[in-house]
Each structure stands twice: as C-alpha cells, then as structure tokens.
C-alpha cells in the first residue's frame, strides 16, 4: 500500500496491518523525522512539496523492484506532504516477511531509492524565520551503490 497524505500515521496501526497474514515472522519499519539541525541550521518547521501523480508512480516502481529482489509478504509506504513541525513523522516504510533478512534489506533499499527518485522536496524554516530549499545529500546518491553489487 502506497499513500501520500498530509495527516500523521500510527506505527502500531500500520504494523498491525502488516502482520495480518499469519505467515509473517518479521516486520522492519523505517520512519523519518523532522530534525532540529540540518545543514548546520536550527530548523523550526518543514514544508514538503511533491509532484502529484509522479510520486505514486515512482513509489510503485520502487516497491515493485524491492518485491522482485526479496521475499516480501506485505509492504507499506506512507509519505506526508505539507507543513510539518519538529520531530514530526515524515515517512514510513514497513516490510513484512517470513525472515528478518528480507525485511531489513527491502526496507533499506526502498528508503535509498525513495530518497533519490521519488519527487518530494523539502523547504525548511529556521528559528530566525529564514526559509530555504534543502540541498540533496551526496551520501544519498552513494547509498545506491550497494544495491548494484
């Protein structure tokens, strides 16, 4: 299930959907949060923009790639858009599988690709009311290398 939404999500509720099938033995979740310091600046809030239509299309493609590489029983990706405060949940990726290795690998794979391919953009506001678009991290592009091994 892939969702792009302004509203928050609940980890236990998402986890309970992921473990509905009784064959599930392992669930790995990732959640990304609004951090207080980014690029050396004191962040007070964040606005997330996206490209409607392409977002869902690219997330669907990333999830399909993960499913073709690992044994995944169920998968949820939620990405929030709009205004977010400090420590708010931004993104959720949850993977249910028979064994933990598949769940860990697929979850990290989806996050690595989401970070570099899904059309979301963050605009941060600082405590002194400055506001700027976040720069892409070099490290996020490098993180993709491990999946082409």
């Amino acid at each position: 299930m892939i969702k792009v939404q302004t509203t928050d999500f609940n980890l236990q509720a998402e986890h309970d959907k992921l473990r509905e099938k009784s064959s599930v033995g392992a669930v790995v979740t990732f959640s990304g949060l609004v951090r207080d310091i980014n690029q050396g600046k004191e962040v007070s809030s964040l606005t997330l923009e996206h490209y409607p239509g392409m977002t869902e299309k690219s997330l669907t493609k990333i999830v399909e790639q993960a499913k073709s590489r690992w044994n995944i029983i169920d998968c949820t990706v939620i990405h929030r858009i709009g205004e977010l405060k400090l420590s708010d949940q931004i993104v959720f990726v949850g993977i249910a599988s028979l064994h933990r290795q598949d769940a860990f690998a697929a979850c990290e794979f989806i996050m690595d690709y989401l970070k570099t391919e899904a059309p979301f953009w963050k605009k941060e506001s600082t405590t002194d009311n400055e506001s700027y678009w976040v720069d892409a991290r070099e490290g996020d592009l490098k993180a993709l290398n491990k999946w082409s091994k």
Partner: protein
Amino acid sequence: MIKVLFFAQIRDQLATSELRMPSSENHNIEMLLSNLKARDSHWQTVLSKTNLLVAVNQTISNENSALQSGDEVAFFPPVTGG
C-alpha cells in the same frame, strides 16, 4: 500542446508553476529546453543548472526524449524527500 511543469526551487526562481508550449516547435526535451532558455537571461540561468532533472509523463527522462502533443514535461531539482 505540451504541458510544462516546474517544481521546488525551479518554480520559485522562475515564478512559474506551469505553462504550455506548442508541440510543433518542441520535438524533444533538448528543443524544449532551448526554447524556454531563449525567453530571457534569467530563464537561461535557472534552466542551465547542471543538476536539473526532467520527467516526461511522470518518468525520469533526459535531453534526447522525444515529445508529442499531450505530453507532460516537468523540470525540478534533485529530490529531497524521505
């Protein structure tokens, strides 16, 4: 007609989120970009950034991608979600 979208910094810098371009003069992304840059020196600068990304019909593409009437093209900076 070709629908052209701009996102994030690119939209802010161009103060434009969407415009239409005639498909007859824009057979591929390279031609479209060149016509957009020809608008003025500011557009020239903004659309010459080395990290500019382009999507055709919501799929990442490149300068050589062919275009036809009805296509949706989007220009945007590297993504920063997650």
